[in-house]
């Protein structure tokens, strides 16, 4: 049976060959954008390792079914507790790692978001990463752009996942999640090659209505005065996912810029193509580019622990006004 992974063909092949020749490394560091399929890949490899059939993974045997349900006793998924991966979690892992496997011949540990490990936790992990017991295989996942200790990275074989092609995401959504073609295409474009994100949007109705709401906010804000904008900035600064709002708005303004250059086939928010077309005509290219840059730098400020409210206020004051019929220039008030 094929591995239950969409895309990342080269990575799957690499692991398959390592498995077939018995040269699987004891530890892998899988990095890539959020929700691109890092843990999915690790789980698939775990399934292949734990499967009891002649040609793993068979997808049928008890071990495979247990892996799919997340209840295999030899598969441990360790995710950051609260915000961090704590040293106690690493110690527990080490205790479990020293014990022989229960049902299979291997014990697989998946440590998600290793960048969230506290320094003591990461250091405690080094010993296990360097010489784990023979039956142990570790998979660490690392979000793209984040960092882990060089001593951790150097003890693992590294696999870097890249976003999937839009067409592949759309196809997977249609085939595996039975999404209608049009919606699949939209989600695929919005996902930026991250299938996991698209699936989340599919199952989480709240996330989808949130997107709609936030795009509406952006349109409303552009015609509002400074008081309204300041008020919105204040509200936004108290939300903990302000950065994802900025990312959403970036994708919108990127679409505006793309339309201005006549690249309609690359637009992400195709469900609102008409609105986008109107927007493209009402701003000049300079404005769109400047605001995109402002969005990017504000995102960076927020990550760097700047005063969120201040940064967002400045951003929203820079939001250009659409060219009104009277020809009123932006920020004239």
């Amino acid at each position, binding site marked *: 049976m094929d591995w239950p992974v969409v895309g990342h063909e080269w990575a799957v092949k690499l692991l398959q060959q390592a498995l077939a020749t018995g040269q699987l490394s004891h530890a892998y560091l899988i990095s890539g954008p959020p929700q691109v399929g890092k843990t999915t890949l690790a789980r698939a490899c775990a399934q292949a390792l734990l499967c009891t059939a002649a040609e793993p993974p068979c997808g049928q045997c008890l071990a495979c079914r247990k892996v799919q349900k997340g*209840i295999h006793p030899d598969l441990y998924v360790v995710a950051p507790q609260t915000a961090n991966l704590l040293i106690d979690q690493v110690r527990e892992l080490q*205790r479990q*790692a*020293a014990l*022989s496997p*229960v049902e299979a*011949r291997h014990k697989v540990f998946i440590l998600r978001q290793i960048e969230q490990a506290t320094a003591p936790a990461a250091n405690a992990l080094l010993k296990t990463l360097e010489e784990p017991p023979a039956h142990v295989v570790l998979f660490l996942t690392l979000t793209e752009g984040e960092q882990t200790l060089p001593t951790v990275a150097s003890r693992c074989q590294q696999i870097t996942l890249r976003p999937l092609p839009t067409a592949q995401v759309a196809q997977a959504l249609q085939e595996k999640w039975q999404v209608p073609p049009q919606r699949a295409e939209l989600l695929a474009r919005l996902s930026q090659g991250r299938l996991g994100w698209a699936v989340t949007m599919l199952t989480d109705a709240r996330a989808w209505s949130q997107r709609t709401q936030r795009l509406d906010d952006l349109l409303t804000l552009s015609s509002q005065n400074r008081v309204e904008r300041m008020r919105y900035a204040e509200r936004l600064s108290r939300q903990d996912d302000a950065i994802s709002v900025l990312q959403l708005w970036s994708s919108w303004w990127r679409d505006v810029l793309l339309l201005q250059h006549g690249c309609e086939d690359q637009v992400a928010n195709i469900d609102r193509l008409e609105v986008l077309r109107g927007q493209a005509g009402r701003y000049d290219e300079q404005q769109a580019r400047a605001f995109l840059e402002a969005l990017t730098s504000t995102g960076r400020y927020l990550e760097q622990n700047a005063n969120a409210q201040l940064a967002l206020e400045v951003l929203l004051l820079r939001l250009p006004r659409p060219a009104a019929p009277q020809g009123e220039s932006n920020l004239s008030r």
Partner: protein
Amino acid sequence: MRVSCLQENLARGLAIVGRAVSHRSTLPVLGNIMLSTDRGRLRLSATNLEIGIHCWVGAKVEDEGATTVPARLLTDFVNTLPPEPIELSLVVRTQSVNLKCARYEANIKGIDASEFPLIPTAEADGMVELELAGLRRMIDQVAFAAATDESRPTLTGVYASFRDSLFTLAATDGYRLSVRETQLAQPVKEPVSVIVPARSMMELARIIGQLPPPEEEEPATVQVTVTPAGNQILFHMPHVDLLSQLIEGTFPDYQVIIPKSYATRTVLDTAAFLKATRVASLFARDGSNIVNLQITPGGAIGHPAPGTVTLTATSADLGDNVSEMDALVEGADIGIAFSARYLLDVLSVIDTEQVVLETSSPTSPGVIRPVGAGRELFTHVVMPMRPH
């Protein structure tokens, strides 16, 4: 599944398997106890992925089947029931177990038995057969010396070795070492050595203590098997199987740690030594937990003055204490300090009347052995504390 059994039998079985239930696991099914029918009996099983326990309870089986139910609720419920027959039946549609006893009735929601980890049971005869009480005694004498600190996993286990007719248990935490040997009735075909988690061994000792007294023709023995894959050890007792995962790794070569010679050999009365240590520990426990031993030989041959051992412990805040014991001392006099807790641990598992302490210098390890234990060879090595 439809089974009926006596409340006291079920309660006893639940108490035995209950210790292997894991309440804080990421796998919810590990908080459950598996109930299944097995050759005319009811089998209870629980595991925390380190230890797995099966316990068979005499029952009348009307319908075969299996399920798992939350351990805590089931145990607490059964414990409050009157000592009368309990009828258990599984409602497959809702995966819940219906219990009826006297005028009480309950439905407990369960998880499908297929989600429960597989715990092997003893299929064939074991590799070796050991006497229950003897094994328990061996575990008591060895397991306490294992490390509780997880930084070196192999030291948290008890080394068990079967070679020809010799069965050895050994454990060390780096500061002390306990080795206990016994002769097997039948030699093993191939030598086997494994490291069993100390927790599993202590659990085994506890279960042996809880077993109901064996019936007439039942042997009071335990069959020990290491699974073919070499990843589990199975102890098959009457009505109970205990299965433990093994610790992977190499156990340190402990033979080289045991001193081959001594400068002073002191024979003491075990009970007196234990008592004196206990008294000294009252003063020692507050600070560094050190007791000092001053060992003085008796008069020369022909002068029957006995040797003496003086125990002292001092606490800067509380005061100090001195106890003196008569002893048979061979060799030079010596002053040596030990941890009070370590001495108490080992002295309380020695059951002979006399104990021998062999020492060489204040900085080299001391050896403690029972006197006159015959073939049941027990050796305990303990590092001295740095003298003041």
